[in-house]
């Protein structure tokens, strides 16, 4: 007997979630049992089975795997401020003077 991990999809389009594991002699038996154990008792549209020996987990060192340094620039959230800054800039009375100066410099 080998251990198989079972993943079920509750609704179409959703990610498969780990549902549990079971013992079986081969993949066919694992699928048949998974359908019985996990696919029928609860609402579910699709089932995956995977040989546990074919899977690998990260080393369980207890070390965190998420980021510990500030990397907020990875999230494109600063753009919300651009409109506010732009409007503030446009409302300034000296914009027109600046533009005229700009035109004089370049044309």
């Amino acid at each position, binding site marked *: 007997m080998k251990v198989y991990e079972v993943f079920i999809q509750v609704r179409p389009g959703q990610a498969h979630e780990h549902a549990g594991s079971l013992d079986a002699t081969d993949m066919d038996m694992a699928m048949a049992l998974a359908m019985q154990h996990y696919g029928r008792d609860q609402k579910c549209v699709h089932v995956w089975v995977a040989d546990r020996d074919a899977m690998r987990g990260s080393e369980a060192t207890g070390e965190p795997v998420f*980021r510990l340094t500030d990397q907020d620039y990875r999230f494109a959230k*600063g753009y919300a401020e651009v409109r506010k800054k732009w409007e503030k800039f446009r409302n300034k009375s000296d914009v027109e003077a600046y533009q005229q100066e700009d035109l004089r410099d370049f044309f």
Partner: protein
Amino acid sequence: MTSSNPAEWPEHIRRAFADLVLAGADDDFLIGHGASEWTGLAPMLEEDIAFSSIAQDEIAHARELYALTGDLLGRTADDVAYGRRPDEYRCSSLVLRADEFDWSALIARQFYYDHFDALRLAHWCESGYAPLADLSLRIAAEETFHLHHVDDWLVRLGRGGSQDARQKIQAALEAAWPDAVSQFEETAGVADLAASGLWQGGGGAAAMFGEYKAVIAERIAKAGLRMPAGGPDPAHLPPGGRRGRHAARLAEVLDELCEVYRLEPNAKW
């Protein structure tokens, strides 16, 4: 033991400590920039995403170290990162090595750097200045993934079965070796830092190099490759990047990196 408040440190100690941290910040900044140039060009899509993420990690590490240096010098992180002359940078020549978009040259550079950085951070964790010790601990945890990544690539190129790949990575390791050793040049005033209890210098350049060599020799052997021989003496390196003496390439890279900042140094982003 020196005060935990840098404002109370003698000027030469503050300068020496800033130089020490800048060596790490500038290394991260430039290796991260070099890595980011590969975005869109790595050998396969998943690697492209992973390596671009590594580039962003390095820039993040640089940013936090620049902020820490800025606190010591009374400058903003942006000002420290972008507002210096080339001779005020403290990066080593390794991070400035051009790779000509050759993957083996990139992996050799990254391999030598990531292992050096991990070792430096391990020693910085023992710093008497708590903000550096704490930050080093956080950065080191992230660097673990960089080591996994680069060690895997070394084995892949060395033992993947392609004679071409094996020869290329071996040649790249040999070519970059003198620059790898040059990372161990000490910044000015390291001895003063040891006396002040702020940092013990990792036991000196020769001791740190011994630790480094043992680790990378093991990884290189695991990849079925030969450890490069010779190279400069890490304990007697001529003044180089850590003392602000750089190849002309640094100024060219900085012209590109600092282009936007120099347009309007006081702009608020």
